[in-house]
Each structure stands twice: as structure tokens, then as C-alpha cells.
């Protein structure tokens, strides 16, 4: 038996409890915490458009997100660790998106699902935010329009990898809310060559 994430320390003979020479496993706290975080990453429901259907499909019978310990989609952001932004974010929705993100407890992660959330996609117009990374920090981008459940699962596994190898306290410094926030929640120039109308509303 090998407990993923705990490294060699957790390698023990695969014959049940009899294989335990000692009743404890040595590891460092960081590895243990990361392992626990990775295995119970509860997503918040933030389905917006087409991608939300594929997200729900990923959670339903055929694809079964329960295998990764994530079938519990939480309606309350306070109980969620991961926000899957599934779909296009409009100018009207952007403040709501930020508010939901701010309500989530640290540590928290964001998957930007689909091209609309990642870059505005084919809707390069007045109504759609050209990439949610202008509003919240994003950890993993899932491409596709919409990404199939397999793509979403790949994104989730990529995120698991990131959590697993990540440093325990790093996120709070770089993406913490409030005064120290960088990159998130601030109006950023759109990156698609548009130049006009950059006045910041106050």
C-alpha cells in the first residue's frame, strides 16, 4: 500500500495492518496537509452557461466526480475549496463572481472552465469579460467550447497535482484578499489589441 502524497515514508507492505511494523507514519506536516487538501477538494457551484452542463455531466452518473472526492458541490461558498467558473462571465456577473470568491475560505482554488471564462472566447464584445483572470486569480485553465467532462477531469487532476506539490502558505501571500491583492479584482486592460475606453469607473 502506498499513500499518495506522503512519499517513501508511507510505503508499507501490502498485507493489511499486519504490514505495519510501527503504528505511525513519519512525514512532514506540509505533505500531509497537501494530501488531505487534494483528496477533499469540494467545488462551489458556479455554473453559468454551456460549460455548466458539462460540469454537471462530469458530476453525474457516467463520469462520476465522486472518484476524486469532489461529488459534493456546495451551494454555499463558505463550504467550498474550489470554484469551477463554468461559462461566460458578463459585465453584470463579474462583481458577483468576485463576491463569491471572496466568501470562500482560504485555501481556495479556481478552475477557469472553457474558452469564454478563460479569454472571452468567441464573444469579444461589450458584454463579456475577456477572461476571468481580470477578476479572480486562476489556477488552471480548461480549454474547449465546451470542454468535455474528460477535459474538466484533466483540469481537476492538474489542479490536484498543483495542490500536492504546492507550498502550504504561499497562496495567502500572493493572492490573499484585501490590500495586498495583486492581479485580481483590478481592472486590467483587455489583452486582445483593443485600446479604446480604458477609463476606470469610480
Amino acid at each position: 500500500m502506498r499513500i499518495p502524497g506522503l512519499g517513501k515514508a508511507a510505503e508499507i507492505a501490502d498485507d493489511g495492518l499486519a504490514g505495519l511494523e510501527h503504528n505511525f507514519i513519519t512525514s512532514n506536516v506540509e505533505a500531509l496537509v497537501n494530501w488531505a487538501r487534494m483528496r477533499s477538494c469540494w467545488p462551489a457551484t458556479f455554473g453559468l452557461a454551456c460549460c455548466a452542463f458539462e460540469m454537471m455531466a462530469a458530476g453525474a452518473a457516467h463520469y462520476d466526480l465522486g472518484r476524486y472526492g469532489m461529488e459534493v458541490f456546495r451551494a454555499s461558498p463558505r463550504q467550498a475549496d474550489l470554484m469551477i467558473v463554468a461559462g461566460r462571465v458578463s459585465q453584470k456577473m463579474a462583481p458577483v463572481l468576485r463576491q463569491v470568491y471572496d466568501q470562500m475560505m482560504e485555501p481556495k482554488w479556481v478552475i477557469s472552465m472553457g474558452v469564454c471564462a478563460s479569454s472571452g472566447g468567441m464573444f469579444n464584445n461589450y458584454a463579456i469579460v475577456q477572461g476571468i483572470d481580470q477578476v479572480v486569480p486562476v489556477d488552471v485553465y480548461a480549454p474547449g467550447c465546451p470542454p468535455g467532462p474528460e477535459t474538466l477531469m484533466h483540469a481537476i487532476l492538474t489542479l490536484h497535482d498543483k495542490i500536492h506539490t504546492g507550498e502550504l502558505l504561499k497562496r495567502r501571500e500572493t493572492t490573499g484578499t484585501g490590500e495586498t491583492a495583486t492581479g485580481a479584482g483590478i481592472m486590467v486592460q483587455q489583452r486582445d489589441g483593443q485600446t479604446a475606453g480604458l477609463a476606470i469607473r469610480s
Partner: protein
Amino acid sequence: MTAERVMRRGDDSAVLRLSEAEAARIGGDTADPADDERVMLNMGPAHPSTHGVLRLMLEMEGETVLRSKPVIGYLHTGMEKQGENLTYLQGCTNVTRMDYASPLFSELAFSLTTEKLLGIEVPERATWIRMLMCELNRISSHLLFLATNGIDLGAVSMMIYGWREREEVLRFFEKVTGLRMNHNYIRPGGVAADLHDGWQGDLRELLELIEPRLDEYETLMTGQPIWRERLQGVGAINADEAIALSATGPLLRSTGYAWDLRRDEPYLAYDEVDFDVIVGTYGDCYDRYAIRINEIRESMKIVLQAIDKMPGGDYRLQDKKVTPPPRIRLDESMEALIHHFKIFTEGYKVPKGEAYAAVESPRGELGVYIVSDGSSTPYRMRVRPPSFINLQTLPHLMRGGLIADGVAIISSVDPILGEVDR
């Protein structure tokens, strides 16, 4: 029967006609003792219901809903504006992302309107393929309704079952169109690709699979006392009110008013197939549920007939103006390559004029109105969104009911917010 209830303008109307700022003021005002029991409640937009980013402003007295206002626009995508900058060939990629539960219907309406403007007729086989695919799409859309309606009412297993069967239909779509959703399959001039070899067998297998599972749903829900109590008599509306509020689709048919564009204004080849228009009696949530589950059966009937009657021939119009050359020709002919390039970059010019074509989508009348100025992009592209208009009935359905029934009512109207906000 009268529609007086929906014509009211003042405070006795079911619609809460307040701006956000005004509502916030009222909600905070505790000075007026008469308003003690009256609470302003906000539901959404990131609400745990399975119907997208709909937000409701509710005026409550205890548990009872008095007035309400659906606040929409949280998914406004500017598709009508975007449509003015995309060619007619690209137009389908745009509209298909509108109603993502039934994308083929938006493509169909857009294609029919463009064809009207161009004055072209598509081959018979293309017409039948379109009808076949649309009916399959209606099945998958209604299965989705059953799933979300189930979970909204707490029948979580229905959620799993509905998605399971929808997945089977999507598998067929993936085989034909290459995509699970947002197919861009129906295009002006025909469809993007012919059906694959052995599609009849695939479809028969699919229908054989769904048929008994529908009976399972009936056992699970239709006859079940809890299910009936939660839906019967909840959110009732009469035919006059539904017509006055411009409602179409299952919402209108649930009141006993038999109006279905497939039968009453036949398009495609609907006049050559045999099916029934399902109507309800009481116009309540239960009728709307029953109509949809039975419409799945009618759609299956149409699919079976389409398998038998599918004509041979071309799956798209062989008109150089609108049809790109076959893929294989690009390797051998420079002319074909140029032709292909021109069609996909410049598009084709559509003569000046305006046209409207409507189809019966799973949610009601879905129409596309295009004004052409003679260029290769529409001058104005307007979609008549059935969910957007059906959503107007929501305050009237909810008035006087309990807040707990609100979710059942939202679910039974079956709005797709992508199409509401466009």
C-alpha cells in the same frame, strides 16, 4: 377565464416593478409597522437551483410570496450584436451557444431564415436529417428537464438517471456532429455532414434503451403521492393569461391550448410524419412535467418514422455560392481551395431584405428575424427567445404560493438562461 390578473399595473400586480435601489430602501425600512411582516428577499444569481444565473427579487409575507421580479442579464453575451459582425456561415456558431440545452433548434431557425433570404431550397435528405436531429435534441432537452426538475424537488436519483440517458443521446450526437454540445451542424444550405454508416442501428438501440427507462421514471415519479402533491395545483395559469403573456411551448400547452408550430405551421417535413400534440388541463407544474415526459415519447415516434422514411440524396445543397467544396477536393484542386477559402473568410452575400422563420423548440416558439443589407453579414439579427418571454409568467405563477414551491415553479418553466439573456 380572464386575463385580468396579468394586466394589472399597480401594487396588486404579481410583478414587483422596483429598481434595485428602491427595493433596497424598502427592505431596510422598519419604521412602518404595517411592513413588519413584509420582507424583501433576494434569491440568486449564484443560486443553488439548477437553472443558471437567474436572480429573483421576492416580496414575502412570512412564507408567502407576494410580488416578485426576475432580475436577468447576468449572462448577457451580446449575441445579437455579435451576430452583426459574423458572416452567415459563422452565424450558426454564434446562435448555437444561446440555448445550450437544445442548440440544434437555434441553428435550424437561423438557417431557415437565411435560406428564406437567399431563396434556396435544401435537398430532401437534409430536411429529414434536420428533423431527425432536432427531435433527438428535444429528447435530450426534455431528459435534462426531468433531471433538473427532479433535483430541484429533492428527487436526487432522478438527476442521475436523467443525465445517464442524456449521455446516450449525446453519444449519438458526437458520432454525427463531432461534438456533444454546440454542434454547428445545421447550416444554411443543409447540414455539415451526412449520417454515419449504421446510424439506423445506433438509433434503434438508443430508442430501445430509453423506452423502458421512461417507464421507470413514471414508476419513480408520476404515480408517486409525494411527487403529485408537490406539483399538482402549484403554479397554475389559465390559457387566456398564458396567451396574454405571450407564452408558448409546453407552458402554453399545459393550459389545454393545443398550439404547436410543428403541427400548426409545419416546417421541415413535419406534415409527413405522424405525432400527437400533448396538452394539459390545469396549467400547473404537474401538467408541465407530464407534457414533457410524453413529448419524449412523441419525439421517439418521429425519430422511428424518420429512420424508415429517410430519403437518399445529398445532405447539403450543391450550390457553389453557399456550399464549400468537399474536403477531399482541396488536396487536388487549387480552384476548390480558393473557393473554400473565400467562403470561409468572406462568406457569401445575401440579398437585401428581411425574413422571419420560427421553429418549435422544447421551450416554445424560437424565431430568428434577420435584416440583410446585401452584404455577407446580417444587418440585424434578432432571436425571439422563448425562455425570455416565458419567464414573464413567473411572478404570476408564484404569487400567493409558498417560497418552497418557488423552486418547483422556476424549474417547471424550464428557462435556459443563455437564451434568456443572449
